[in-house]
């Protein structure tokens, strides 16, 4: 069969700083930030759980703020700084929130975990959570089907206390 080209999909050049490294990328305009990370850059630590902004598994830090990377196109973020789960540890030393997830057994299958961790870090930065009920509300955009919520709350409480001491 005679092939037409997919002329409707253009490519754009963008610059992204991902986990501290600046990268020059050429991306198709219909590629989401999530698919860019997972399928093009092999940063599969960021998870796809629904691709509809409903589960939070794809949560990353964009310029320090937590966002659902499935709901955002890559081309929209030229010049942005992105931190994914792969960029949190300093060498062998885990980020305190990562270590707390292990210590509190705040996950089971581990699939929502990168999103929960990024969300925790974003939540602390937002500075809105004051009480346990606030934490539960503000972490409700990250579904954990294994049901580790009560352990996740302990992690966030600890992180909150740490941030208040700092």
């Amino acid at each position: 069969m005679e092939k037409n080209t997919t002329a409707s999909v253009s490519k754009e050049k963008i610059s992204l700083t991902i986990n501290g490294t600046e990268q020059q990328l050429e991306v198709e305009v219909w590629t989401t930030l999530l698919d860019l990370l997972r399928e093009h850059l092999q940063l599969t630590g960021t998870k796809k759980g629904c691709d509809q902004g409903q589960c939070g598994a794809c949560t990353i830090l964009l310029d320090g703020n937590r966002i659902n990377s499935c709901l955002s196109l890559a081309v929209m973020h030229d010049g942005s700084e992105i931190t994914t789960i792969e960029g949190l540890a300093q060498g062998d030393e885990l980020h305190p929130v990562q270590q707390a997830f292990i210590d509190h057994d705040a996950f089971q299958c581990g699939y929502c975990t990168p999103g929960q961790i990024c969300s925790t870090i974003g939540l602390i930065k937002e500075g809105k959570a004051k009480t346990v009920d606030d934490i539960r509300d503000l972490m409700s955009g990250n579904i954990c089907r294994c049901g580790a919520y009560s352990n996740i709350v302990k992690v966030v409480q600890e992180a909150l206390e740490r941030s208040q001491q700092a």
Partner: protein
Amino acid sequence: MASEVIGKPKNRVDGRKKVTGQARYAAEFSVPDLTYGVVVNSAIARGTIKSIDASEALKLEGVLQVFTHENRTKLAYYDKSYQDMDAPPGSPFRPLYNNQVQFNMQPIALVVAETYELALYAAALVKVEYEQAPHETKFAAQRPYAYEPEEYKSTPPPEPWGSPEEALKNAAHTITEEYAHPSQHHNPIEMHASTVHWEGDGRITVYDKIQGALNSQKYVMGIFGLKEEEVRVLSPFVGGAFGSGLRPQYQLFMAVMAALELKRSVRVVLTRPQMFSFGHRPKTVQRLSLGASADGKLQAVIHEAYAETSRFEDYSEDVIIWPGVLYNCDNVKLSHKLVGLDVYTPLDMRAPGGTTGIFALECAIDELSYKVGMDPMEFRLKNYAEKDQIEDKPFSSKELRECYRQGAEKFGWKNRKQAPRSMREGHQLIGWGVANGAWEATQKPASAKAVLALNGQLTVSSATGDIGTGTYTIMSQIAAESLGLALDKVEFKLGDSSLPKAPLEGGSWTASSVGSAVKKVCNKLGEKLLELAQEIEGSPFKNVKIEEVVFEGGRMHLKNNSSTAIALTEILSRNKTESLQAEADSEPSDEQENYSRYSHSAVFVEVKVDEDLGTVKVTRVVSAIAGGRILNPKTARSQILGGIVWGIGMAMEEYSVMDNQYGRFMNHDLAEYHVPVNADVHDVEVIFVEEKDEIVNPIGAKGLGEIGIVSVAPAIANAIYHATGKRVRDLPITLDKLV
């Protein structure tokens, strides 16, 4: 020897990989020259595909092929080739087999392209014409035609015992009610995915989301006529499954077929809506008639279940055995009928049957306790089962009484006022409810291999899975303990069809089955180490029997003289051996057959219900579990917490709504299908009561994946009744049913 590793709250050994994003799931393996497949699903529930026009899709540069029933590869003919290890009796669904549509959202085409986005776009261009036939998805309409299957997947209903009808007529107190729950979908957060690596010489390596790599391997071999050495299946990490990964799902078929045809590597990931297009917990309606004497002795039970199945397979689960397992009654009649609908075949979902049957039974028992005028816990204790009436056998162990004692104390049950609507806090009606439950503690045959390397590292392997349950961790603990090694000296491998055989990871039998194989293989390796040590010149272990040595701290020493010792690595090096290995097969003992083997739970729940708005908050849950030996209190607790969260979902949120006009589940995403979120879960506590069981398996652990959920939904429903005086018998209990 005192336990150094088993029974300790160890962190997950795979935790670091999971919190750093290094744990790779089925869709995350990087393979060269990868293509992407997107599945097209049917828009009708029943009928014939008249035509599929893929020309617009195929015109696009980068679209490689659109597979349909018209151009698919040659497939196996007989049903048995499609029957996987968890298939119910019947004819399994065959993707792309012919032009017949058997259920809505049936996969009917696969578009394969060079990029994911292109495949997704091209899939939207595929035009399908149907010849629609009338479908029936209304449960109520088909219920009059409910039937007993020729063969039950579950325990067939036993013959009635005593005179149930007569006993019911003569009972001082009776209830007859119907209890229902809707279809529910597993919705693990990882969507089903397969990455097929075309190795170039006809062989494929498949990364699949499955609760047993051997099942996917068998399925692929059967359908595509491949040899065992031509297909290897790997699933080192599974992002939750809860039963959805017990059977190979259609993305596996699609990805393998496309890879074999195109001779390219292919990845197929289902979308969240497509996660509603295969197995689910079947909608079930149960009619329960119970009778009790004036003083609260259960005298009659008639339990009839009507459960949904597809038109092509007879799926059934253990819904009705629970009156015989949980209570003792002289007059019992049980029946289980199937309601055939034009839907996909239901599928085991966390504690299949138990979650369903115990919900109905425990609500009915609660209702009867109020009729009798007894405290609901006292009523249950009065009718406590001293033996299993279904199998007519004693229990291998049963510490349910202790669950009640410790749970009630922790919860403060003694402060409960009996009358409904008698406890409140301003506008909040407070309700306290209780329920008990059980789940089978089964051991299946399993195999394992252990290799000790010269550097002291022990590698143990078995083709089981870890869907988040903690298999990696507890197996490492068992191995470490058996050979006296530190936990970080042990690596456990799983999720690989080339490893020694293991059963599907389900049914709460993994700790029991694979754990027993791991223990056995490590003991066998210990024996080999002793034999090898005896070959060393001047060995102090000559003529020493295995019972006379102890493995501890990386060394083997005499039981009665710990200074006569040798490092395990030295045994290898002195014999100039690079490594030492053993393999073992374990099987359940004959003695198990003389006993009924179950874990048990008692769950106490507090709810607060807004009197005006009907909103319900589950403010406190105490779950007391008798699950045999607890191998790791940390991961064990997490499994029970998960069960509690699932119980909250079942009681109050989860509902796959069937649009009967189209025969399709209409709320097919996570915005419309509600699962519990963080804000739904409040104060939850888990108690493990001490329970010794030397019969259930050599490990003494009963398995915890399912016992945590079974009593939660009825305890919540009972608490809501206590708070409001309203008995809601159809789940989920949403606020419209309370105002």
